[in-house]
């Protein structure tokens, strides 16, 4: 075994061991019971996956039916063709910008600095990446094959039909896996062109982008892309892709399709063989080590580190100074939080708060108090999570945050005030939206009075939860806790106290406005208590 395959096989085995540990199997334990457990786990997951894919097949069948094609397998072929085209072009677009071969820091030193065969590296890395891609895309193919079998059986499925489903799934999976292998090899060969040391091709990504545009206009121009793939010029042009996929769904001879899939794989492998000969592995490593570190951190469940690495990648090298002025004292914390939010990008900010708004709107629109209670609890949990973000970031920089000459309570307020204000504003918008929709389900404008106290309390409850387990040593290492069960319990208690007191007082004949005002007072009292508690916890971090 060559050095490249030696290293790669060890890496893949290590990855496999990691996932086996996740499902409870310890590969170092050679006992018989562990072997039995492995068989049990394999059977369990095979059955579970089969059941899940079968379950999805009826949904897929109802999804495919409205396309009015001659049969479900024809629609499945069309959909699979579009899926593989989109995937292939997207992968090629990325390969034109960044190396498709992704290396870790260790690889960068151990593999990329050595004069090993570049071809061996390309194929060894492809061997690590292809099975996952093939499994993911193949799973869609299996669902579509099951849907086709469903349609053939006209819904009269019995347990005796299981082998028929298995065979259909297997045929589809195998052809898709081969085609995906070929397409991925071609994409990697395309990406390798940019990594060759003898020329610069900085605009290579334009080719798949342009091809994608042409395909989109051509396929969707007639109104239905699936129809375009069944007849006409596009159907002929894309026949090398359509034929093996159609064979997987029983529309063509399967062995012929299998041969076509093998041809895809052979052409792809040949292209990669030619293109990978002179690739610059150092350059590939420079482009991908951070990405690999981020993916590894996420796979290991270290989401803060993954988030941090993604942010560093997004931010790039530097930035011109902020346009808005910093304020003295605790205003500096507010300024810093606004700056951080702006730099993190609009999408992460808006997506998080849009979800909060939509859940809030749901709570307003749901007519019964049971459903509304659940919606409010989800809303409270989401607000609490968002409100704790600034404090977590500050605590993770304990050496910078702790020495600031800002009273603990003010520092806490600076971190939760902006999210609380935003949550309040969105709650008001949700109440307004509910009223405009005419389905406010008994929630009147007076309920808006409850929002500020609730939002602030949720943020402070989150702070209490984060701080109650905080330890200096962990914070000095950059590890701040995430809000969890206690935050949820505080949110539930706060929501219940505030809303129940307002509803109860209104039920006793107090005007609704006054009852809501009383609810606001209750929540503000709770907020004060939470602020005192969080302030003490912050001062007394061990």
């Amino acid at each position, binding site marked *: 075994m060559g050095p490249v395959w030696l290293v790669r096989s060890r890496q893949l085995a290590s990855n496999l061991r990691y996932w086996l540990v996740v499902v409870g199997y310890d590969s170092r334990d050679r006992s018989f019971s562990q072997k039995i457990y492995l068989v049990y786990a394999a059977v369990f997951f095979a059955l579970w996956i089969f059941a899940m894919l079968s379950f999805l097949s009826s949904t897929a069948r109802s999804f495919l039916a409205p396309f009015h094609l001659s049969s479900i397998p024809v629609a499945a072929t069309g959909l699979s063709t579009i899926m593989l085209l989109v995937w292939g072009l997207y992968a090629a677009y990325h390969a034109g910008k960044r190396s498709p071969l992704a290396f870790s820091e260790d690889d960068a030193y151990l593999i990329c600095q050595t004069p090993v065969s570049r071809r061996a590296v390309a194929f060894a890395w492809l061997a690590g990446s292809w099975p996952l891609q093939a499994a993911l895309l193949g799973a869609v193919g299996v669902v579509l094959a099951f849907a086709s079998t469903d349609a053939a059986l006209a819904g009269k499925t019995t347990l005796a039909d299981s082998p028929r489903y298995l065979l259909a799934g297997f045929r589809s999976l195998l052809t898709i896996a081969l085609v995906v292998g070929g397409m991925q090899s071609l994409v990697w060969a395309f990406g390798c062109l940019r990594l060759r040391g003898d020329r610069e091709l900085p605009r290579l990504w334009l080719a798949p982008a342009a091809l994608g545009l042409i395909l989109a206009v051509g396929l969707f121009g007639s109104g239905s892309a699936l129809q375009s793939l069944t007849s006409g010029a596009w159907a002929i042009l894309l026949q090398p892709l359509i034929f093996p996929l159609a064979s997987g769904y029983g529309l063509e001879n399967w062995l012929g399709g299998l041969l076509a899939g093998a041809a895809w794989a052979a052409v792809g492998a040949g292209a990669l063989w030619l293109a990978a000969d002179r690739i610059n592995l150092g350059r590939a490593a420079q482009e991908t080590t951070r990405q690999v570190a981020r993916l590894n951190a996420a796979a290991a469940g270290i989401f803060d580190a993954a988030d941090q690495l993604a942010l560093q990648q997004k931010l790039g090298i530097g930035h011109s100074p902020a346009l808005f002025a910093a304020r003295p004292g605790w205003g500096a914390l507010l300024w810093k939080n606004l700056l951080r939010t702006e730099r993190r990008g609009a999408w992460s900010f808006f997506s998080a708060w849009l979800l909060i708004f939509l859940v809030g709107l749901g709570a307003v629109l749901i007519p019964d108090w049971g459903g509304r209670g659940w919606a409010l609890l989800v809303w409270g949990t989401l607000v609490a999570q968002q409100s704790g973000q600034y404090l977590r970031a500050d605590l993770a*920089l304990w050496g*910078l945050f702790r020495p*600031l000459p800002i009273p603990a309570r003010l520092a806490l307020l600076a971190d939760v005030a902006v999210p609380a204000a935003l949550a309040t504003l969105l709650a008001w918008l949700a109440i307004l939206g509910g009223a405009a929709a005419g389905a406010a389900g008994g929630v009147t404008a007076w309920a808006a009075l409850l929002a500020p106290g609730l939002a602030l309390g949720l943020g402070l409850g989150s702070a209490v939860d984060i701080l109650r387990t905080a330890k200096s040593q962990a914070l000095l290492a950059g590890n701040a806790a995430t809000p969890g069960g206690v935050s949820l319990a505080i949110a539930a208690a706060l929501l219940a106290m505030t809303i129940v007191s307002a509803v109860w007082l209104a039920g006793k004949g107090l005007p609704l406005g006054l009852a809501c005002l009383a609810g606001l007072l209750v929540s503000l009292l709770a907020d004060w208590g939470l602020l005192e508690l969080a302030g003490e916890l912050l001062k007394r971090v061990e």
Partner: protein
Amino acid sequence: MPPILETYQLSRYYGQFRALAETNLALQGGEIVVLAGPNGAGKSTLLLCLSGLLRPTSGRVSVEGFDLYTQEVQAKGRLAFVPDVPRFYTELTAWEHLLFIAQAYRAGAGFEARAEKLLKAFDLWQARDLYPHNYSRGMRLKLGLLMALIRPLRVLLLDEPASALDPEGVELLKSSLLDLRAGGAAILLSSHNPQIAQELGARRWTMSQGQLEAA
């Protein structure tokens, strides 16, 4: 003259392990003390307890008479700590870190001129708009030091400040410390380099197994 930095029976235990024995120390204004000792002697623990980053198991720390825990705002306003590996906000540039610290300490007046002077002196002016995660270790240490120097202080604590600096950086550090001493500040720094105490004309304290000697 009363000491600027004073501790009374300061100690820190990790479970049963004594990282810092009960320590009484006093630093006068205009004094530099170099803290020496082998790895694991308790130097960083002492500095962390003095800076308020690590809560002591027992004892008190006072800065110009202000207790670090009961009068924390007043005490923190006078105290600066530069760790051996400073950490920064990912989203803020070096310039913005200096601005943030200056404003948080209400030292915004004349910020731009002071920041420019410091950044140029420490050779970070060209890199002022970069995010610190793109800095080398030495540059990060310099930025950590500048974040202490951009604001007024009476006590400066430094953990291995010369560990990652180039020779020019070390010279700059020494001249900055001498300037601060001339301004009446008390400085306590840990270092494995015995020469640094001589060059700064500093007193030398030694730590061993959590015990401070020659204090």
